[in-house]
């Protein structure tokens, strides 16, 4: 593997590490590990990457940030070999690799993760890693290869799942598997594409510790990330990408402090935090947008009002238990969602939030307890029956229908409405999210993550729902896009839409919700009005401290 003598110093990529030697070596060879020049990638008429150049010194951790759809994942694909550039050169470890296919780059030590995890679904977690080991070292001893896999899984917190098929892992564990599989290559250069999305603080800390420990084993890391803590604590240097171009570059602290970056990426929340004066324009624009969104949202929700006489809450859960096979996830959930209220469900990953959303949607039948809508028991009703009662789901992971266009995705949720009504609803959703209108004929999944999330929300609204369950809508989005989505949600709330927000971003959820429930081990550990929960010391303990 290390036929290049200059790289022999770095051979010791075992977890034991050779940090000392590496440190010395890093100082002596200050050559670049990776140099990309003038990279261009076009998809039809769209230029996804436009003349991007970047350099990664040995031992450096480089962050790539930018809004959703800026071309970050394309850049990772170009470096890793999954995407072939239309122009430009890539030099890695002294050789031109710009035209090499992905397997050859992987064999030279470039490991990457996929933003949307792509594990080998019908293989065990161990075999997922063994595929990497055996492709590189077909004649390695089996015991050695398996021991290496076990060691990597241990570091990535997946060792308990080693014999499970990858299909059985939920989204966030699949992300861990992405990292583990890239590490199984013993990479020299690691490309991490949004591995931090969706993690709560404690998990983010774990990931940061992992990345830091990797610094002594790999020669360079490129991180594409929206979780600013990871960017701030791991990256030496940042490149900001916008509209396919490198927009700014520099040491991490400088870039994050820059006003231009705040405007295109970090968004208003960040700008407000660092001082009002320099972001007046941004704020004003946001306010204007909020006002128009307000009008629209009113239109969207008003006609959704269905005559009802019952005094019962719109949605009620009575001591609901649920799980998958042997695994019990919900252990007695009592929940009331009154009309016009926004209720947030917080909690660490694995606490049971999404399971709760599944029970409400009707895709998972509770093993005990009752689900009531307008005071009527609907426990175990099929999902389409629940949807017919006016409950819409904005599911985790967006679940856009890939073969359908944006408009078809939207219309699907309004099949029963007449043509005029459908057109009216479409117009309103397009006005709420103008991005969607511009891309109405594109395939649903061809858009950026933020636009896809807008589509998922728009689709939920197309059915004129009385209650929408928003499951992790901020996952994997740039701060500025999260701002826009939550502005839209706030407008919908003011217009009277009842909503249940399942979220791991505590601050945003607390800012929007009236009531908050914090979940732990399948139960509500803490419930109350948002204001009270925010100040409750137990929130910090439950959420950030190790709950055990």
């Amino acid at each position, binding site marked *: 593997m290390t036929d290049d003598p200059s790289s022999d110093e770095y051979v010791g990529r075992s977890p034991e590490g050779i940090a000392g030697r590496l440190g010395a070596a890093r100082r002596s060879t200050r050559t670049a590990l990776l140099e990309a020049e003038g990279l261009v990638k076009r998809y039809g008429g769209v230029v996804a990457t436009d003349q991007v150049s970047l350099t990664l010194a040995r031992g450096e951790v480089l962050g790539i940030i930018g809004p959703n759809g800026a071309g970050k994942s394309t850049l990772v694909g170009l470096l890793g070999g999954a995407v072939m550039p239309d122009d430009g050169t890539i030099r890695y470890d002294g050789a031109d690799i710009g035209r090499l296919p992905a*397997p050859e780059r992987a064999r030279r030590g470039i490991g990457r993760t*996929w933003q949307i995890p792509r594990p*080998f679904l019908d293989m065990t977690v161990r075999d997922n890693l063994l*595929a*990497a080991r055996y492709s*590189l070292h077909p004649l390695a001893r089996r015991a050695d290869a398996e021991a290496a896999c076990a060691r990597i899984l241990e570091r990535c917190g997946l060792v308990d799942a080693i*014999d499970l098929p990858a299909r059985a892992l939920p989204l966030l564990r699949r992300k861990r598997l992405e990292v583990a599989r*890239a590490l*199984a290559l013993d990479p020299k250069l690691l490309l991490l594409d949004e591995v931090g999305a969706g993690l709560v603080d404690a998990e983010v800390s774990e990931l940061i510790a992992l990345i830091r420990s990797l610094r002594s084993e790999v020669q360079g890391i490129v991180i594409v990330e929206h979780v600013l803590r990871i960017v701030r604590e791991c990256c030496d240097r940042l490149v900001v990408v916008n509209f396919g171009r490198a927009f700014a570059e520099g040491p991490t602290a400088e870039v994050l402090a820059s006003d231009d970056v705040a405007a295109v990426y970090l968004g208003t929340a960040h700008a407000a935090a660092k001082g009002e004066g320099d972001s007046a324009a941004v704020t004003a624009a946001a306010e204007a947008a909020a006002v128009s969104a307000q009008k629209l949202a009113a239109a969207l929700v008003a006609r959704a009002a269905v005559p009802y006489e019952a005094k019962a809450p719109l949605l009620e859960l009575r001591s609901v238990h649920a799980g998958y096979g042997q695994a019990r996830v919900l252990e007695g959930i009592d929940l009331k969602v009154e009309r016009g209220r926004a209720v947030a469900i917080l909690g660490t990953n694995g606490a049971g939030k999404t399971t709760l959303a599944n029970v409400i949607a009707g895709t998972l039948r509770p093993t005990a307890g009752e689900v009531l809508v307008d005071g009527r028991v609907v426990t175990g009703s099929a999902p389409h029956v629940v949807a017919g009662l006016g409950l819409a789901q904005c599911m985790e992971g967006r679940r856009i229908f890939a073969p359908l266009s944006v408009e078809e995705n939207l219309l699907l949720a309004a099949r029963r409405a007449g043509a005029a009504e459908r057109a009216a609803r479409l117009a309103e959703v397009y006005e709420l999210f103008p991005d969607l209108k511009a891309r109405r004929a594109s395939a649903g999944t061809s858009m950026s993550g933020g636009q896809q999330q807008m589509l998922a929300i728009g689709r939920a609204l197309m059915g004129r729902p009385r209650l929408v369950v928003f499951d992790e809508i901020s996952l994997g989005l740039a701060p500025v896009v999260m701002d826009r989505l939550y502005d839209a949600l706030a407008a919908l709330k003011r217009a009277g839409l009842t909503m249940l927000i399942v979220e791991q971003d505590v601050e945003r959820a607390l800012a929007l919700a009236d009531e908050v429930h914090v979940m732990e081990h399948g139960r509500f550990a803490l419930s109350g009005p948002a204001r009270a929960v925010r100040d409750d010391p137990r929130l910090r303990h439950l959420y950030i401290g190790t709950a055990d």
Partner: protein
Amino acid sequence: MDHPRSAFGAPPRRGRCQRTGEAGSAAAAWSAALGAPNLRRPTELWLLPLLFAAAALLGVAGDDYWLEIGFRLLLLVTLAEAWNLMAGYGGLVSLGTASFFGVGAYVLTGLVNRADAPLALALVAGGLAAAAMAVVVSRAVFRLRGLYFTVGTLALAEALRLFMINYNGFGGATGLFLAQDPPGLRGLYGIALALLLATTVVMTLATRSRFSILLRAVRDDEDAAAQIGVRAFRVKLAAFIVASFLTGVAGALQGLKLGAIEPYGTFGVQWTVTVLSIVVIGGQGLRAGPLVGAVFVVGLGELLADWPALHLAITGVILIVVIRYAPQGLVGLAQRAWARAR
């Protein structure tokens, strides 16, 4: 197959404890042999020799009827194993089985007639010719993925069939006669058994080895596999060559048995369809799928031998039902039932 299930379905009673325990171990053996995950005990080591011993016994003691059926069964299991290696483990759903099968049959006949080649050599040469054809077409068909690969192989098979019908160099539509007398039925059965033995060894190596991990990785996600250094083209080509070789030898053996070959029969789509239904009914990507499926399909064919139209219709209905309700075939169904019973 029902044995373990019925034993567990009944509530355990005192008097039957002994028997239930016995059935339990048999069931465990089955589930291991069927390729249940996480069971690393090599049950194949004793179950397979047992099955082969039974087949050999049939070859020695069976009458002509049983030898005919046995030959057909062995041939179809071989073809199904080869197809399963590509489709079940490699995700390469081919509809080109008949072309490799036909090439094997024609090469054997040609070598025996023209060069007076010994049979053993001609059989192997049939396989090698099919493998060579796989190499030649690989560049073209591997450019296509998924459904396009399937359609590409179907196009290849049809083109070859039409060529063989219309080109007179290889006997044209009337075909060729084998100049030599074929060996007796018992001899043919023996060769088929030897071929299946070789196939089983190859499949055991291919499905238990690290190669199978690479192959399944390519099946599950070719791009992701490439990104961890797997050279997908080579891995797919290896599976394609091995499967084509086995298919070619099987074709040569069928040509030898018939003594006369013509393009409609040897290049006909019915071979492809039969093999496909065997694997789908038995269970794709499962080690025991081809055997179980072949026993089922051949058995059904015998039961309904007097009503050919009904046979076709029933096979069609069974395929639809299996694809809808048991995508992992009969073996997958048994595995699930077993997992539930436990």
